[in-house]
């Protein structure tokens, strides 16, 4: 039973890491209706620019600020040169454009900063906390707990930002209806620039966390693939959905990885590891058949 809980908690904490990436998707989708496939590539770019700046001799805090500037500029440039040109195109076209954007970043970032994998040291040690080890005999990483803390602070800030500030209200208005928002005097393009800036910031946080955990390398772009089932489960438009979805996906995939392969091996014989790769997707797919709009998504009414 202890082992079960250890796996469960480990899964929940890694789910928080997925949720960090999923948040970026939700933000852009909420505010501009664009499903930004390039979020994973943006995480990579952010982590790489921090590592690149530190290699040039900048201290961590300066590198993070520089990376934030890079991400914001990049977000604004994307809005200006890609998305603004695609206004009024069907959402699928915008989605495919962001796939193009993802490839563009994946090519550009290593050209600028170099492609060799690097370690990123944030000063947080990835080691088990002695208290849990002694009292409960469970291995729970200090790093995971810090990541969970960062994620909750981020979500709380974003929720406050969306609910209470002027800009947040404008963002929600834009998300609801572009034209109506425009007609009551909300500057659409500024709002979009802000959204892309914020998404860049979230990508930076996710990039720092993932980069410190797994090293700054190309595999960071795959974080997007981990975040997609989270989004489906939680609903594309819900910030809490991203968190809850992340927790469910993280916990269930770790449990599935431990408990399903032995069963399969018992039936068919052989080695059935690597279930993590597809389990979240199948889970999300089955879930969709019951609730097509996700856990917290808005129910969509079609009109002819």
């Amino acid at each position, binding site marked *: 039973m202890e082992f079960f809980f250890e796996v469960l908690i480990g899964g929940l904490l890694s789910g928080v890491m997925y949720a960090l990436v999923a948040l970026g998707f939700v933000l852009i989708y909420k505010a501009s209706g664009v499903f930004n496939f390039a979020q994973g590539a943006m995480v990579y770019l952010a982590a790489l620019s921090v590592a690149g700046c530190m290699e040039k001799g900048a201290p961590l805090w300066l590198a993070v600020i520089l990376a934030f500037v890079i991400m914001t500029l990049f977000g604004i440039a994307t809005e200006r040169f890609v998305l603004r040109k695609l206004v009024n195109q069907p959402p699928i076209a915008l989605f495919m454009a962001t796939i193009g954007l993802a490839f563009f970043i*994946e090519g550009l970032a290593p*050209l600028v900063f170099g492609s060799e994998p690097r370690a990123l040291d944030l000063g947080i040690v990835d080691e088990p906390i002695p208290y849990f080890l002694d009292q409960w005999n469970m291995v729970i990483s200090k790093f995971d707990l810090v990541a969970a803390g960062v994620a909750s602070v981020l979500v709380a800030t974003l929720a406050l930002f969306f609910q209470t500030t002027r800009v947040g209200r404008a963002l929600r208005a834009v998300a609801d209806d572009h034209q109506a928002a425009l007609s009551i005097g909300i500057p659409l393009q500024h709002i979009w620039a802000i959204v892309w800036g914020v998404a860049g910031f979230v990508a930076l946080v996710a990039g720092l966390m993932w980069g410190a955990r797994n090293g700054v390398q190309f595999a960071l772009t795959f974080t997007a*693939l981990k975040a*997609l089932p989270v989004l489906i489960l939680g609903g*594309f438009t819900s910030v809490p959905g991203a968190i809850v979805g992340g927790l469910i996906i993280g916990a269930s995939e770790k449990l599935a990885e431990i408990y399903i392969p032995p069963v399969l091996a018992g039936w068919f014989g052989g080695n059935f590891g690597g279930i993590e790769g597809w389990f979240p997707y199948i889970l999300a*797919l089955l879930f969709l*058949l019951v609730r097509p709009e996700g856990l917290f998504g808005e129910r969509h009414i079609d009109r002819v």
Partner: protein
Amino acid sequence: MLYREAGQFKTSYAADQQLFPIRQDRIGVLLLLAVAFVGVPLLASEYWFSAILIPFLIFALAALGLNILTGYAGQLSLGSAAFMAVGAYAAYNFQLRVEGIPVLLSFACAGLTAAGVGVLFGLPSLRIKGFYLAVATLAAQFFIVWCLTKFPWLSNNSSSGVISTQPIEILGLAVDTPREKYLLVLAVVALLALAAKNLVRSSTGRAWMAVRDMDVAASVIGIRLMPTKLLAFAVSSFYCGVAGALYAFCYLGSVEPDGFSLDMSFKILFMIIIGGVGSILGSFLGAAFILLLPIFLDVALPAAAGLFGLPFSSATVSHIQILVFGALIMFFLIVEPHGLARLWQIAKEKLRLWPFPH
């Protein structure tokens, strides 16, 4: 004036309903087929067959399959490579386990198997749309590749799922040189492309397009969404499955599940975006473009760098390739969302009027 269809009057329904109602198109297609079947085999070298022409035709077929699903029926799929994998492994297993099955029949059965799997993964499309569906097709991508790696029966107990395809023999003739393989692939692709051309102008194709443009409106005018969408998934996966079988048997000869990666799915998606979404011709143009671009960059970039005396590594070339791919996708979506096929149409319209612009 080079190209004019005025004055070609139709006097029977059969004449009006033929596949290519315009004489120039008929002649053009016949010429193209003649060149492909007779001219190219006489002229092209071994390298051209095995490195360019065969993959071009196979990827064009896969792009055609995706185009039926995405371009005509409007259901975005990111799992086309997985359906190719199903086709490749199904053809291998039919050859292995059914005594004396003809190769072409095993390809057809492979297509049908892929179609079955496609329908299975198309089922969610009845409840979900758009991005949700795109993500759902990713489930197919990861799950199928995992299955092929982990179930040893599917690859006849070879390690890590690698299969080496059986030799091809049709009516007692061995198909083993690149030239013969090219002719086989060409025949299959030409046949399936004409079938697709025919299909998309039929009532089925029109129903697909109605669903693509607005599915609620389509169901209001009496199109049954479930059979229409599932048929699109089935036909599309059939094409991808046959393409996968050809990919294994005629192009590589030995494939592994991981070869049918998400990257390959994206590549096929890029082909239809650049070639033209919702166009049969576009699938071919896009496949040619996407396959030739890396070859061109491989040659051109080091040459350009040498000209300016810049240091250059092969890693840089691959980064620039990815970058150019991404930039081109965005460029085409912004400037010409209907892709190369639309450019060809514009060229035809210009030729119709040339040399007088009005």
